[in-house]
């Protein structure tokens, strides 16, 4: 009995110690990424290539999802607002929910599964096929050459993607609300403009998306770099990237929202 209890406790203890240890390794890795970022800023071509693979290639899914989310918001919002006879507020509802929450959060979730998983898989495979080791043997620091450009490319892409998601969503809401249902166009836009504040809403949304971008990319890079160099290891790391970064996005979103919109 006592022995079983001791075993359970040992198991818990080992998990905690392992978790803390991994956190430490991840933090150190993140610090190294920042430390070795100098080189890739002297060679912007490296970052441009990564903006292409994480930003441009995520564009389609972001734009299409944004449009549909906005259209659904338009429909649902209209249904609800109609009950109170304030359909004109549809613009506010669509814009605020997108700019403050859905834009940064959903764009980041999509980004995690599209670009984050790709980053993890790519780096994991580079490690499994000894490309990382080969680079080290060629006296090229893989953190500076492979990790840092991907980090900055993705972090730069994220706010743009979130902004495009929101803009596309508002367009979708406009399409359903104004063009299809026939809400008054003037009040749709003017109410929206009166209610959406640049600093409080738009800028805070951008800040959120930057934070999410950093979190997703840092997780994706670490998982890739830390993956066991086997097919199974890489596939598990990819899954972990999506799961961990999705949870991180939602958790961070709560914290950021609590800080940013506390006064409202």
């Amino acid at each position, binding site marked *: 009995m006592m022995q079983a209890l001791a075993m359970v406790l040992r198991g818990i203890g080992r998990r905690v110690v392992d978790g803390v240890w991994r956190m430490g390794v991840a933090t150190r890795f993140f610090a190294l990424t920042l430390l070795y970022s100098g080189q890739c800023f002297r060679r912007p071509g490296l970052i441009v290539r990564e903006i292409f693979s994480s930003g441009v290639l995520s564009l389609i899914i972001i734009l299409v999802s944004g449009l549909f989310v906005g259209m659904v918001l338009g429909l649902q919002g209209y249904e609800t607002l109609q009950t109170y006879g304030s359909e004109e507020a549809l613009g506010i509802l669509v814009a605020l929910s997108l700019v403050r929450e859905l834009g940064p959060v959903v764009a980041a979730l999509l980004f995690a599964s599209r670009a984050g998983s790709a980053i993890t898989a790519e780096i994991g*495979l*580079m490690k499994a*096929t*000894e*490309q990382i*080791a*080969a*680079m*080290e*043997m*060629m*006296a*090229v*620091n893989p953190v500076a*050459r492979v990790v840092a450009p991907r980090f900055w490319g993705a972090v730069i892409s994220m706010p743009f993607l979130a902004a495009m998601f929101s803009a596309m969503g508002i367009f979708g809401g406009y399409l359903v609300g104004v063009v299809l249902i026939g809400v008054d166009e003037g009040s749709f836009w003017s109410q929206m403009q009166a209610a959406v504040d640049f600093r409080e809403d738009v800028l805070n949304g951008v800040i959120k998306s930057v934070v999410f971008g950093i979190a997703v990319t840092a997780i994706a890079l670490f998982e890739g770099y830390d993956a066991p160099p086997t097919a199974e290891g890489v596939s598990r790391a990819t899954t972990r990237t999506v799961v961990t970064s999705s949870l991180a996005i939602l958790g961070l979103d709560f914290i950021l929202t609590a800080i940013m919109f506390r006064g409202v």
Partner: protein
Amino acid sequence: MHGLAPADPAVSDLSIEIRDLSFAYDQRLVLKGIDLTARRGQVIAIMGNSGCGKTTLLRLIGGALKPSRGRLLVEGTDMSTLDERGLYRLRRRMGMLFQFGALFTDLTVFENVAFALREHSDLPEEMIRDLVFMKLNAVGLRGAHDLKPSELSGGMARRVALARAIALEPALILYDEPFAGLDPISLGVTGNLIRRLTDTLGVTSVVVTHDVQESLKIVDYVYFVSEGVIEARGTPAELRASVLPYVHQFVHGEADGPVPFHYPAPDYAEDLGVVA
């Protein structure tokens, strides 16, 4: 370009000097008291069965691991005192061929070979082009410069990786299982390339392999590693004539001998339950 700087001739013509080197993963001793030397212009082979520690030895020479005990001098530099900067400086004078080539899959053959040149020099584009074509020509794949690594056969990938390894004109080239998984023709081609490059470039080559027949044809000196110690050493001729049971088993590819066919196990009859 650092890769072109000749080694200080005053030091010696020793490319690699290993004295009483030991290495342990955690608590497990993988290498015990290794002595090994490689002279400039030599091809030496480190042979042994799988898991004997020969790849670990190669990684120690490449500086990917640090020895637990003993001396390890590469090109006259003590590896145990090197910091990261010094290690990277030394590695510019090393080339390494990985087991399956380890080509960068997102770059073309040309860009793979040009990689180190682009990273370590500010050479103009035409000069990089000329250098890359020279290296690719040396391995006979100048015509394949536009292909992606995924379009190459295993043997071709190995040769491209070799061209990449010699891009910076290293003084020392390390080969990790260069013959693994190659068809007989590619095998011969790769073996000849290793010999020819060593002679023409005046480099030192260290080949880790378990392919006895192919490597005995091209190497100058062989070290047999078993269970973390050097079991035997000598020129290919000496080893072919060796009567040491381990070497004999290895050179002639016998199934059973000092390296047993069976993994240590309890008595067969007992496991089958026929005794009792």
